[in-house]
């Protein structure tokens, strides 16, 4: 009875991912009220305290509670990730559907633009942009969005082209549907599934690259906390107080894991190959 087990397994991925996300959301919403310490208050007497009941994640070089900073840092990181995902999703899908559906010269131009953006590895392009525009959260969001939209555009274009060849699209045109109506009623519902999967699957990498940029000092500027920044702060104390870098990294990994698992489960859910093949003669 192998196929029974498989369907449970598929939900397993969704459940684990969902559970982790719930924890993250809980921390996001209730975190600040829960932790008693002010993430920015400096108190050198408490410098480099090891993790204990009072300070669950210990304190950093300036005596600030790492736990409090991680909670606020998570908020900023998530804010950046969500905004980047939304911007790149909207731009990417519009460009993708437009170039996929209209085709012809529009498609060619957009393809060339994408090729230039794709000529850079993701981090390099983000770095180049930040290198020129300077650091700060706003520029970090712009840089990440500029890199990410191509993934959505490519997916939307391929799916639109695939759908365009289907016969029911031709039938819809023959029925008298206007172009705009076809895009709304036929094309978009067709790719919503894929967009959802790509969105959840791309939040993880966005968090990671966001943290990387802050780690390099190009993203969110001190003193407001961001996960990448926190890890960077701990670099000098690697030998003596590893916990300063350890816990922010763990939380980042956990958040990304949550999104990745949820995305993977969603992908299996939408993946036609996993549905039992219809009994054909």
């Amino acid at each position: 009875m192998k196929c029974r087990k498989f369907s449970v397994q598929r939900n397993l991925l969704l459940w684990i991912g969902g559970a982790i996300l719930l924890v993250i959301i809980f921390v996001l919403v209730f975190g600040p009220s829960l932790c008693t310490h002010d993430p920015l208050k400096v108190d050198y007497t408490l410098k480099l305290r090891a993790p204990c009941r009072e300070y669950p994640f210990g304190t950093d070089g300036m005596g600030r509670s790492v736990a409090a900073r991680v909670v606020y840092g998570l908020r900023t990181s998530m804010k950046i990730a969500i905004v980047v995902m939304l911007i790149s999703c909207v731009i990417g899908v519009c460009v993708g559907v437009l170039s996929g559906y209209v085709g012809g010269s529009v498609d060619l131009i957009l393809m060339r633009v994408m090729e230039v953006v794709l000529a850079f590895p993701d981090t390099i392009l983000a770095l180049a942009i930040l290198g020129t525009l300077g650091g700060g959260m706003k520029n970090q969001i712009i840089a990440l969005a500029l890199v990410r939209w191509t993934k959505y555009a490519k997916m939307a274009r391929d799916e639109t082209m695939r759908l365009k060849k289907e016969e029911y699209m031709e039938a819809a045109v023959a029925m008298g549907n206007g172009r705009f109506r076809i895009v709304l009623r036929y094309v978009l519902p067709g790719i919503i599934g894929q967009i959802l999967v790509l969105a959840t699957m791309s939040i993880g990498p966005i968090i990671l690259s966001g943290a990387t940029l802050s780690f390099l000092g190009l993203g969110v500027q001190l003193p407001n906390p961001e996960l990448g920044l926190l890890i960077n702060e701990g670099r000098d104390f690697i030998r003596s107080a590893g916990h300063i870098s350890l816990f922010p990294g763990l939380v980042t990994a956990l958040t990304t894991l949550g999104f990745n698992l949820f995305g993977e489960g969603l992908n299996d859910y939408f993946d036609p190959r996993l549905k039992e093949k219809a009994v054909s003669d």
Partner: protein
Amino acid sequence: MLRAEHVSKSFCVGRGRNTKIQAVLDVSLEINKGEHLGLVGESGCGKSTLARMLAGLIRPDGGTVLLDGQDIQKLPVKARKEFRRKVQIIFQNPQQAFHPRMKLYETLAEPIRLFHLVETREQERLMLEEAMERMGLTTDIFGRYPHEISGGQAQRIALLRSLMLEPKVLIADEPTSMLDVSVQAQILKLIRQTTEENEIALLLISHDMDVIRAMSDKVIFMHESALNLN
């Protein structure tokens, strides 16, 4: 009524070298009111491409397609919609001619809503139920999805959807080649019956001589017009 004058179309095929396959070369064809025309030819000789050009789905490279004397590619938007109503097409693979995630009631109601044939939803439902009876289909199909019905049923629904708009010309692109022999007979008889009743001109396309001989008054042979111009 619907006329094609020296129509031709070629496609670029294959990556790398630009090999052009000439699908349709200099074809002229006329369908008059209430006439039953048969178009037969080897598979891959451009029959489907010609059908799609006549239905205004593909823009011909050369020549023009005229409806009542007007070039259908140059029609203004309003007239283009009217053209869609007059010329309907049904395809070879019935299951794929419907949106896979839309219930069949929605698919059937779409033409009615598009052309505002009725005002209220009750009239729409009545109209559809009565049409289903005529086609010999049960109304439980309304709630089903395209992959939940058989090929024969799907082709009947495609036929019904096209006839809702009382078209002047019906183009049938190999309607029965994917169906089994017994179901094939039903569909062909239905097409013949409905087109004669409502005075609809029919262009039946197939690669099967028996089907064409049994169904059409005039027969056109499409010679091997796929020339390779690489």
